[in-house]
């Protein structure tokens, strides 16, 4: 029993990170019907920002407490990553908005490779640990051990998702996003600044991924190529949940978290990717709109 709960908590922790990243894929797809293949690498960059800011803050003479250090690191990662995503959107994707969709997808693949290899060339390939931003502690509840990072990840992710859901459903900006995703041509006629909304969507998606990045970095090692695997898993989450659907991405994230944690119980752990990608194929072939998506009729 205790072990099952332990596994479930691990699944929730990993799943939270996947869900946070999946949101970025799904938001961009929702608004531009474009798969931003660079998103996983943007997530990777956020962990490096957290690494350098964290090291600097902890090494500085300020002797800040745990909470300010954590918050400052988080803020720096979010702002830095959002800026990066906005710049990428403006420089690389925006000129291609009228071009065939294929061009944008290839560009995204190129941007992703660029980020990976640039990080590799400048920082190096060795895996790194984030410095301990928050004192490591553990809570023991009836035989179940919860680390503080785990608790933090699960709770904070849920809060961020709730916040995003509220922004998209209840604010004017959220309404503008939904308007653009429904109809890019009519929205500007209603006074929606489409270009700004699109850039904002990229930035918002990256910010959420950065929250996931910091939380991930506090638990695992980071390296320049980490964005590929995690990005893919998050992307599969988005498709499984129903790409373009925000709540779907959250559900998909937790499902993939479960796949990651529970697969090694049944199969050798090297089969994890196989299971995840098979799940993706099954969904694409039998239910391409995912769990929460709606089918779209073809028009002749």
């Amino acid at each position, binding site marked *: 029993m205790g072990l099952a709960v332990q596994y479930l908590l691990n699944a929730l922790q990993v799943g939270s990170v996947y869900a946070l990243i999946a949101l970025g894929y799904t938001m961009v797809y929702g608004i531009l019907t474009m798969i931003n293949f660079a998103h996983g690498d943007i997530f990777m960059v956020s962990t490096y920002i957290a690494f350098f800011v964290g090291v600097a803050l902890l090494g500085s003479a300020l002797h800040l407490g745990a909470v300010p250090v954590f918050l400052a690191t988080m803020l720096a990662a979010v702002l830095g990553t959002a800026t990066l995503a906005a710049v990428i959107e403006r420089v690389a994707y925006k000129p*291609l908005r009228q071009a*065939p969709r294929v061009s944008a*997808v290839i560009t995204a693949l*190129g941007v992703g490779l*660029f980020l990976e*290899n640039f990080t590799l*060339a400048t920082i190096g390939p060795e895996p790194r640990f984030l410095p301990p931003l928050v004192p490591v502690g553990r809570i023991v509840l009836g035989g179940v051990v919860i680390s503080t990072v785990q608790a933090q990840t699960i709770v904070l992710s849920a809060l961020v998702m709730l916040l995003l859901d509220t922004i998209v459903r209840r604010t004017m900006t959220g309404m503008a996003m939904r308007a653009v995703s429904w109809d890019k041509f009519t929205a500007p006629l209603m006074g929606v600044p489409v270009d700004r909304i699109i850039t904002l969507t990229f930035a918002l998606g990256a910010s959420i991924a950065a929250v996931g990045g910091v939380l991930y970095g506090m638990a695992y090692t980071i390296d320049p190529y980490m964005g590929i695997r995690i990005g893919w898993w998050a992307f599969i989450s988005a498709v499984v949940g129903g790409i373009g659907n925000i709540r779907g991405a959250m559900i998909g994230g937790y499902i993939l978290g479960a796949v990651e944690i529970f697969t090694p119980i049944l199969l*050798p752990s090297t089969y994890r990717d196989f299971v995840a990608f098979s799940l993706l194929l099954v969904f694409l*072939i039998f239910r391409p709109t995912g769990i929460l998506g709606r089918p779209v009729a073809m028009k002749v």
Partner: protein
Amino acid sequence: MRRWRGFLIALAFLPLAVLLPRWGLLNLYQQQVLMYVGINIILTASLNLVNGYMGEFSVGHAAFMAVGAYGASLMTLWVFPREWGPLVFPLAVVAGGLAASLAGLVVAIPSFKTRGDYLAIVTLAFNMIVKSVLENIDAVGGPRGLMGMSRLTSVAWVYIWVLLTLFVLRNYIYSNYGRGTQAIREDETAAALVSVNTRQVKVMTFMLSSFFAGVAGGLFAHVLQFINPRSFGILKSTDVLVMVYLGGIGSLTGSVLGATTFTVVLELLRPLQVWRWVIGPLLLVLLMIFRPRGMMGLRELKLLVPPEERPEGIRAALASAGADPARRAGGGVPAGGDRPLLAVRGLTHYFDGLRAVWDFNLEVFPGEIIGIIGPNGAGKTTVFNLITGVYRPTAGSVLFRGQELVGRPAHEIIRSGIARTFQTIRLFKDLSVLDNVRIARYARVRYSLWAAALGTAAARREEEEIRRGALELLELFHLGRYADAPARGLPYGEQRRLEIARALACEPVLLLLDEPAAGMNPSEIDALLDHIRWVREHFGLTVVLIEHQMRVVMGICERITVLDFGATIAEGSPAEIQRHPRVIEAYLGEAVVA
């Protein structure tokens, strides 16, 4: 033999490929780079077939290469004794290619339903799965891979395979199967509606493309002499994509250029070490922004175009074909029988609960011109879509010459003798006027895929026939002088005429015209009506016409059915329809009685 000349000249250089390394004029490094260039040309050209010519978006090409590499290596390592190596090497490479083409089938099947981004993900997922499976099979070395293959690949072998690849791909592209492939890129639905069996084309194209990717894999494995699953990941697939888009989509010349440039530039950048993997992707992004169609972009070097397909070849054929109106004449209006040619009964269709067509009935007798009219949104085009198999009706039956059409795929329905045009013109815009017409012969082609790929005499004779027929048809429609121009450049009226010519190339008995007069002024409409009458006489057709302008149908139709909100509200002769109160109401609103 003119057709083969380019390849014969290229083949004449083969002794050089054998002798230069033997004389020591190429050192091992240079040989290796040359071999990589050749292997990359094969990979690039094969992916170009799917991404450039078919317009699908496959991004997991390395998976097929992996299957070919492992397949060929297993042959030379285990199946055959080692000392047979050089003798069985071509066999091993072909076996690898065949294994890869079976893998291609796995991707072709999902492509029936999915397109664009989704298909891209399917292929990527397939790439990851192949890699993951190889990593988990201990018999083929798991993550460590296979090693110990002899260095059987030589510059000469690579050269031969490059020539073979280009030869087969060129023949395929310039056959009617290849034109069907390009029609899918331009407009898949329209392709099916001019008789292209889109599933067949997809299966053939994916399998052919994967075959050559597998060949490239087999050659690669026997240059490097060891392979592991990591060599065939997404990075490799991305490299191939870069080469395709660098050189230019839909161009074999582009593939040769792209693969050569990419391979050589990467070799030159080798001293930069890690930074060349930074510069490469950056170049890709810049390329997409500033030159999205690559260096060649749908253009082709003359050498790779069969002589009869070059502009001067088409002009010569046009001059000899001429317009011989008697040749294709179908012999006047078919005699009216008492059995209907087309009988539609109780046709009903819902779009997600929205009723588009309700209990539609229509009988068309041979030789008639029937009009279906109704306000916008009345469900007229949906009726055509239901008849031609674009949608499957919720209920009802469509009998054509006594045979049920409901449930049959569009291309079979067209093949059985129905052809149609579209409300909004749906030509294959980037293809030539001539190709637009030739594609419509898809279902009538008798030569096989093998004959097409090898360019056999029989296939070429039949192609010759198809071309002559198409040119005659174009001349008949006064479009001959545009034959080698892309369809997108034609003036509006000519595009409409081309669409009718294309429909006629399907050899229909029944022609469905969807708002042929849309966007025309009154004098153009009069000319069009004359034209339709003439087409009916000349080709011996029965015609059903959709219109929303009264004056068009009144002038030409013998009987008219009026639709409103998916339901039939009136039937009768033009004169009866004009006086019918419900028709007046549908068109003008409720009558105000003074």
